[in-house]
């Protein structure tokens, strides 16, 4: 099998992993090829509009596990391939020098045992780091169940390490991935959390959850995210709309729920940067995010008694709760209003999306619209804008 075909097979097997970020690392002052940009760099965008930052491949797509949702599961009759460590280095270095990529994202199916698989990954990264002095970004998948000293060795070679929790709840995982357990994943996450240092996984850890498998609501998923951010100090949780690669009565056959995935990312963002809690967004009784309104709009519409907020008086935290006001514009409002009171025209220049914010704010007591502040009115007016915006970003579901 030639290198072209191998790359085709092993990139194809890796493409469902959502993570492609290259941020958070730090360049170490050592001679060699490459550097790391703290903010991360996108090198290209694939036909699905996702950023390509890293050479995302599996070391091998052979796997002894038989997870129902996975294209590489043991029982699937697909073409299998396996790189050699030298081949991975050759492609990575040559892509990097041409500025195609920011680094390598290496994952793998499980061959023989977790220990054996991890030792192959270690061999590859050692070659890349020590023989070729590669200083670019490396994201590697940790394999749960591997011995701790191997995980340690692997982490010393990578900028970021991740373990996928795959599903939010234990019963779902047990049902769909009988070889995997959350305990094993948490064990590795805990190890990474407690050993973070400039040498060991300096860019921290991330994980991924599938979206759209039955029985798991947004409430389940977001609670799991909150747990992971809070207890394991993850840098990112990625959400991946399930694409029906396998046939099974336990699996959905619908098109991937892209809009739902998008809403989860928005909710995730609100939790990490906007001081929102899961309970502000979904509840056991109301377990799904609205597809019609974005999560912040939904929050505002169901807490109308907290609005309108006055731009020149309310706190930073309150500004963040206004739809159409982002982190940057909230900061700008805070520092600008010290100099002079702001009016609606100023807000536009500060980057506020007025067409959404106008319903929820006053400027020194003045409301933007002629008519008064009425709930059903706002609800109706927000819809068309939201809808047209979504349609341009994502195709309608189903």
């Amino acid at each position, binding site marked *: 099998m030639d*290198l*072209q075909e191998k*790359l*085709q097979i092993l*990139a*194809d097997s*890796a*493409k*469902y992993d959502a993570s492609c970020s290259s941020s958070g690392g730090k*360049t170490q002052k050592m*001679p*060699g*090829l*490459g*550097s790391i*940009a703290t*903010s991360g*760099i*996108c*090198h*290209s*965008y*694939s*036909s*699905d*509009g*996702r*950023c*390509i*930052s890293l*050479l*995302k491949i599996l070391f091998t797509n052979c796997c002894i596990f038989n997870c129902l949702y996975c294209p590489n599961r043991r029982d699937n009759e697909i073409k299998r391939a396996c790189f050699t460590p030298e081949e991975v280095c050759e*492609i990575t270095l*040559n*892509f990097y*020098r*041409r*500025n*195609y990529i*920011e680094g390598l994202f290496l994952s793998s199916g499980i061959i023989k045992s977790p220990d054996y698989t991890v030792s192959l990954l270690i061999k590859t990264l050692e070659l890349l780091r020590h023989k070729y002095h590669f200083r670019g970004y490396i994201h590697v998948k940790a394999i749960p169940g591997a011995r701790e000293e191997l995980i340690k060795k692997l982490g010393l070679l990578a900028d970021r390490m991740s373990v996928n929790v795959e599903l939010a709840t234990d019963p779902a995982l047990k049902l769909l991935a009988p070889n995997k357990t959350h305990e094993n994943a948490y064990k590795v996450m805990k190890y990474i959390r407690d050993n973070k240092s400039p040498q060991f996984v300096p860019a921290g850890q991330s994980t991924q959850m599938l979206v759209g498998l039955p029985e798991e609501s947004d409430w389940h998923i977001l609670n799991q995210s909150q747990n992971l951010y809070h207890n394991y100090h993850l840098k990112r949780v990625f959400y991946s*709309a399930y*694409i029906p690669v396998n046939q099974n009565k336990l699996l959905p056959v619908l*098109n*991937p729920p*892209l809009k739902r995935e998008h809403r989860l990312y928005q909710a995730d963002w609100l939790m990490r940067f906007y001081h929102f809690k899961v309970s502000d967004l979904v509840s056991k009784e109301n377990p799904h995010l609205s597809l019609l309104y974005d999560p912040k709009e939904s929050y505002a519409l169901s807490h109308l008694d907290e609005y309108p907020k006055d731009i020149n008086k309310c706190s930073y935290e309150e500004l963040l709760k206004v739809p159409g006001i982002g982190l940057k514009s909230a900061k*700008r409002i805070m*520092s*600008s209003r*010290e*100099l*002079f009171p*702001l009016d609606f*025209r*100023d807000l536009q*220049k*500060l980057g506020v999306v007025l067409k959404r914010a106008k319903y929820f704010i006053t400027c020194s007591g003045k409301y933007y619209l002629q008519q008064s502040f009425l709930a059903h009115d706002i609800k109706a007016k927000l819809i068309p804008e939201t809808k047209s915006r979504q349609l*341009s*970003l*994502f*195709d309608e579901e189903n």
Partner: protein
Amino acid sequence: MKKTNEIYIYNDSFLSLLVLIKKLFLLNIIPFNITNNCELNLFNPVISLNLEEDDLIIKRLIDNLGKRIVIDLYYIYLSNHLKKEMLIYYFLLYSTKYHEQVYNLRRIGVINDALKASGYVRRENHKFKGFLRFKKLKREVWYAEFAPTNNILPILVNHFKKRFKNEYWLIKDVKRNIVAFYDKREVYLRDANMLNINLEIAQDEQKFQELWQTFFKTIGIKERQNKNLQRQMMPKKYWQYIEEVNSEESDY
């Protein structure tokens, strides 16, 4: 300050522009325009002051105003804004009075425009850290071409100086016909006509371009196809020098 209808001439360098503006401040003049284009103008008097250029002025500006403001001034200078000189004039004027508080004065039209121009340069520079494509030429020289909207080559080289510090490389801005080359120590910016580059590609170049095409085509998920989003993130105006999308386009 007195508004005039005069146009002032500088000689196409950041330093020259700063020296002129400082002089205009001293003379209390708000010019009609500042330009490096000496063409005669029928309606406005064109004035050249022939000032002495001392680069101490930049150091003094950094001491007085801080690095952040001077960097923004330079970024505005690199922008393709038609009235960038006047944006620099006003940004410097307000910075002298308000220092870092100038960043909270977006309600003033020129300051808002100035910060937008500098932000555009900053963002475009960041994008090309990713979008630039190198080819391997004979004798292990790496070569890239691009046509950015703003004149970002002078700042973009700083990134590649760190990234490819042990390689020989060249980057050509095709639109402005300038080339940056790096000799493993320093970066030099030159008029492209002054250099004679042998563009013959290395033997293994084709192989890796093909591998990259394979990877690029494979990594996109069919069920999620979204060409609008792709174009939104990677504007078409840049495609000519990005092989993987440029050749993909011809597939349709």
